[in-house]
């Protein structure tokens, strides 16, 4: 019963951060800030959900399922960091310019890109 409540709590937290990330994705003004908001989904939206599933699996003595879930969490965290960086850099090189920047020191140092 207690375990059930803990699992639900984890899943609700995951849903909340995924929801916040999705709302941000719709409301943010340009591609770069949208990327920032989507990091919300890729980190806590996924991690809390994965944690909930792992607790469910381990509490049912299903260790194979549990370990695989944890591995999925680790892989998503490792790859989403690199992918986020690559998408942002690629977008900038492609000519997408962020709007209303307070300061852009990358532009200042590399005016030709």
């Amino acid at each position, binding site marked *: 019963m207690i375990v059930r409540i803990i699992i639900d709590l984890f899943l609700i937290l995951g849903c909340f951060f995924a929801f*916040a990330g999705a709302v*941000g994705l719709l409301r943010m003004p340009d591609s770069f800030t949208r*990327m*920032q908001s989507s990091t919300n989904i890729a*980190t806590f939206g996924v991690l809390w959900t994965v944690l909930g599933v792992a607790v469910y699996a381990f509490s049912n003595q299903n260790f194979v399922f549990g370990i695989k879930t944890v*591995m999925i969490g680790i892989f998503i965290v*490792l790859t989403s960091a*690199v992918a986020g960086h690559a998408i942002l850099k690629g977008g900038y090189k492609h000519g997408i310019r*962020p709007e209303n920047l307070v*300061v852009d020191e990358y532009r200042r140092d590399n005016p030709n890109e």
Partner: protein
Amino acid sequence: MKNKPAAVIATFILCFLVWILFTLTFTAQELIAGAIVSLLVALFTSSYFIHEDAFHLLKPNVFINFIIYVLFIFPVELWKANVDVAKRALSPKLPINPGIVKVPVDLKSEYGLAMLANSITLTPGTITMEIVEENGQNYYYIHWIDVASKNSKEAGDMIKGKLENWIRRIWK
């Protein structure tokens, strides 16, 4: 490029461990297939994957610091940043203030630089765009959703927080 034996062995062990954790069936057939694939992957990729001491992460004090960083220090920062960005996204006024700042980093090791850059990218609100080296000093260009300071040193302290000191304990 030449393969170093220690690098090949370290890559092989990592690949094989991941294989075992993903399959979790301990029949001879699966283990042998995994070992062959891991060995092939290790032979082809070890020279790109490992440039420094191959077993550095397995030294006891380094390993303990690494575990503390991954399980306690980083999740706390992740929590703070996630709550902050979620608040910004959900608040009616949408209080964002984006900018790209250049921040100095006092790390020398490639792995340390990559680890800090990825940690910064993973915390919502900051994404590392580029790492450059100028006169022996490394700099990050970071896209920041709320530029609180335009001074690069102050901005660096606010973005990196405790993370840099902990990574320096792991990678120098």
